[in-house]
């Protein structure tokens, strides 16, 4: 019987290797899989390349992963936020790399990676510094840049409900990068608030079909980053 549930956060991230590329879901705090990220900090993998729209805030979650010096490189669109000091300091000190990608191009590169599209053209960033070094080509009388699909070794994603097949749904704007990251990672690891029976998620409303999910761990009452930041919490 197919059953993608794993018993613990620890087991879920146990085989993440040094140097891995990891896509981490979330847009700001919405959809950020904080418990999986903290388990990854405990696990100890280093020299990671992390794909996330942002760089975390305060001293928890993604910001804590960076602060604990596990991240060699960030691929993101907006590495600056209100309560974000960790990334800026390391970046200014030259101790972390940044690949800046426009948000829609980042999403499309991830989607392409998951869909077996090695490269595509987009008008986004034409004529800007983010076009530099990229092939530019004219379609329909308009310049476009060539962008490449993005894949990862692992994805860490937060969902609302999951079943044993790995079918997922999400809560409101926490959906953001989760579904496309699940498609683009060799191993997609999901924390869900609830494990339900197959069929409990209406097949018309499954957002991530189970084929894109490898492991599910239940985190019934996930923390909210903004609450932890407000409390001044850090990790570990």
């Amino acid at each position, binding site marked *: 019987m197919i059953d993608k549930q794993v018993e613990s956060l620890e087991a879920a991230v146990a085989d993440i290797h040094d140097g891995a590329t990891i896509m981490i879901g979330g847009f700001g705090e919405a959809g950020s899989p904080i418990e999986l990220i903290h388990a990854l900090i405990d696990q100890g993998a280093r020299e990671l390349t992390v794909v996330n729209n942002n760089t975390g805030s305060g001293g928890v979650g993604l910001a804590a992963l960076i602060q604990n010096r596990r991240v060699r490189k960030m691929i993101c*669109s907006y590495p600056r936020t209100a309560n974000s000091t960790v990334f800026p300091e390391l970046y200014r000190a030259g101790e972390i790399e940044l690949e800046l990608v426009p948000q829609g191009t980042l*999403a499309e590169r991830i989607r392409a990676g998951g869909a077996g599209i090695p490269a595509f053209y987009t008008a986004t960033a034409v004529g*800007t510094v983010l076009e530099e070094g990229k092939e530019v080509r004219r379609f329909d009388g308009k310049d476009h840049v060539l962008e490449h699909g993005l894949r990862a070794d692992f994805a860490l994603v937060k969902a609302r409900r999951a079943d044993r097949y790995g079918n997922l749904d999400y809560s*409101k*704007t926490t959906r953001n990068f989760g579904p496309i990251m699940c498609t683009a990672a060799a191993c997609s690891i999901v924390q869900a608030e609830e494990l339900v029976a197959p069929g409990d998620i209406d097949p018309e409303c499954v957002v991530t079909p189970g084929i894109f999910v490898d492991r599910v761990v239940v985190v019934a009452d996930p923390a909210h980053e903004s609450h932890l930041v407000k409390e001044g919490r850090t990790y570990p």
Partner: protein
Amino acid sequence: MSSQSGWTREQMAARVAVDIPDGSYVNLGIGMPELVAQFVPKGRELVYHVENGLLGMGPDPEPDAADPDLINAGKKPVTAIPGAAFFHHADSFTMIRGGHIDVCVLGAMQIASSGDLANWSTGAEGAIPAVGGAMDLVAGVRTVLVLTQHTTKTGEPKLLERCTYPLTGKACVDRIYTNLAVIDVTEQGFVVVDLAPGVSLDEVRAATGAPVGVGPALQHV
């Protein structure tokens, strides 16, 4: 002259709102552009797109009803109207890149008379570059409106012959709403189409770093 002459922030937002047709799909940038939603003329219905995965953003939530799972691109809690839809990021930027959003309203650091926009980075040494969805919006949205003070806090013009900051996009701005005037970007450069009460064309020209023409409606000025 002060950058605070002419229209207030609220009046500027209201002036933008007047120009957005009924039934439009609209993306409002972070900051002053968010004000536009408060001034939509009665009888018009706009649908707000939030690039992190919501079509049909509603009014701000009551403070005790804020839901950390329901936020906008500025990471602030929002609400969803009946008839809203949630979707993932690739679908969200399909709406943007595919030309499905009718109007976006963005802030600006600099706008060139060619319509080039700079609104994401001063390019300063040590600055943390952060672009978000700005480059996608200006490349994909049908009509790009800019809402900004006419000059910087130190009185420097933001409307220029050429941007000196790194660009967000080339030739992408359609119309600019400042505290002093409403200005179209045309093949002939900046053209004033509306003036704030009490503001003269000369004042606009003095606060602008590029030639400023005059639209038909203002030929009498």
